[in-house]
């Protein structure tokens, strides 16, 4: 196939360039780390919203589930870095399997309401079982174990630069994986379901199986993001499973551009940076976030990434015109 659908070409190169540039251009490495972690969550949300057409308010469940589970196995069972992350992936996937299996039984508005209800339930579960989750205080003293592969310690990950490099490597792997997923028989079927579920079923797909697997993959990646977030903060706050977290992930996905994986970096970047810069200036900065979302939905239906694409194509068409007129005048 051509370059644009090759998993290592096209936008993957842009994503890698962004990963390298972000810590240089942004005011702090920690900020860049936070952006990449939320970009992971937005990318996972994009698989559901952008590619399958499922608006899930349940992403916070998987994010929080990943954060709590990784923290708990590190605190109580002395799990290392990789095994803690794998635990988070498995827990995220399992939670998504449960939520997905029940929610996809309904479509449209009822599906959305079901994910919303699960999200509320998860919050109160986490709040109630405060012995495990720390309740309102969150889970404190979450460690950030050293990166050890085959018995060799590669880095203790204590410096924020080292942790950024680790998160960036994880992000790159997940990004390439997600590219594989969307350019596969499975991914193209998801798009078909988004486009026309009735027809998809009529040509032979049992659409619920596909939606469920999409949920599980999305949950796994979101769980991973949650675990990395806990390691970044050394803390797993209750806000991870709040409805607001699900909303934020959705907003990042939409602002970045639904249906484009690279857009997730822009979406996460925009929201995390706005939060970081504006919250110190004005405590009501969320109002600006609302305005930004309205602006994107009304004027940039393809999100930030869609905006960039149409801008570059406009610029290049202007260039072509200029070249043409200059040649005519010659």
């Amino acid at each position: 196939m051509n370059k644009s659908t090759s998993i290592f070409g096209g936008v993957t190169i842009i994503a890698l360039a962004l990963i390298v540039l972000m810590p240089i251009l942004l005011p702090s490495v920690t900020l860049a780390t936070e952006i990449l972690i939320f970009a992971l969550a937005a990318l996972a949300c994009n698989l559901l919203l952008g590619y399958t057409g499922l608006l899930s308010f349940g992403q916070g469940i998987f994010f929080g589930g990943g954060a709590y589970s990784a923290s708990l196995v590190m605190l109580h069972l002395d799990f290392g870095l990789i095994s803690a992350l794998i635990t988070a992936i498995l827990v995220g996937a399992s939670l998504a399997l449960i939520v997905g299996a029940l929610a996809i039984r309904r479509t449209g508005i009822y599906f959305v309401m079901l994910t919303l209800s699960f999200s509320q339930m998860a919050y109160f579960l986490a709040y109630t079982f405060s012995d495990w989750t720390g309740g309102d205080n969150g889970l404190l003293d979450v460690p950030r174990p050293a990166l050890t592969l085959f018995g060799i310690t590669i880095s203790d990950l204590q410096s924020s630069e080292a942790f950024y490099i680790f998160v960036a490597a994880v992000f790159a792997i997940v990004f390439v994986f997600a590219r594989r997923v969307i350019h596969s028989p499975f991914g193209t079927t998801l798009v078909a379901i988004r486009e026309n579920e009735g027809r998809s079923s009529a040509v032979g797909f049992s659409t619920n199986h596909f939606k469920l697997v999409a949920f599980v993959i999305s949950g796994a990646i979101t769980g991973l993001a949650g675990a990395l977030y806990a390691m970044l903060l050394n803390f797993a706050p209750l806000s991870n499973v709040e409805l607001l977290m699900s909303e934020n992930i959705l907003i990042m996905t939409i602002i970045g551009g639904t249906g484009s994986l690279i857009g997730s970096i822009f979406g996460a970047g925009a929201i995390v940076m706005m939060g970081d810069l504006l919250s110190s200036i004005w405590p009501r900065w969320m109002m600006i976030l609302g305005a930004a979302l309205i602006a994107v939905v009304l004027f940039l239906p393809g999100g930030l990434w869609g905006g960039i694409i149409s801008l570059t194509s406009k610029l290049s068409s202007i260039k072509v015109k200029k070249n043409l007129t200059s040649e005519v005048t010659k």
Partner: protein
Amino acid sequence: MSSNYLLETSGLGLDYGAFSAVGHVDLKIKKGSIHTVIGPNGAGKTSLFHCLTGERKPTRGSIHFNGENLTYLAAHKRVSKGMSRSFQVTSLFQTLSVRENLRIAAQGRGGLNALKFWVPETADKTNIAKANEVLEKIQLAAFADKQAGELSHGQQRVLEVGMALCGSPSLLLLDEPTSGMGVDDIPIMTNLISELGKDHTVMLIEHNMRLVMSISDRITVMHQGNILIEGSPEEVKGDEQVKKAYLGESGSE
């Protein structure tokens, strides 16, 4: 079940509450034939079609396909059995290219095989080959890379049938293939269906009488949920009961 018939229904019926849309229908579709179901509005054609495609669960009776009872089989599972359908209201993947529409339709025949998320979609060459083969057959090769939604209505109707073909069906179920087509486009569809009739068994619902009379091997006329008569185009054309049903002389309409 007799091997001469690809599809047989016996006593098939569908009720909506107290109203019986399909009464007791014994429909037999011969292998290799083009079999048309006609009838005035409200005769129960579409309801019968829904039962055959699995969109609706019949209230009574049975459907045997290739000797196998699949009365209550889910719609998507019928594709792998060899049944494929088109829609009366064009139902495409609007923003995808014509080729991709066909490739995905071909992918559907494999059912859960398409859950593979670790290989490129181009890995399965048979689906691409099928899409290209159908592109040629429905003569849309020149528009292969165009978005399905940008095609003319006539072309969309042809693609609609093409997608059903991608399932490599032994029985092709077409729901009013000329629905909404302009007079100029209808011969294209007529040719396409009679061409398909050479390699497939085709069952269709249709209103366009010229098309029906020119390509059908058998015609079943439905009236008020039941079969009025079944016969060759000549037999149906000359039948008094059919004329009455269409003109509504019985006063029941």
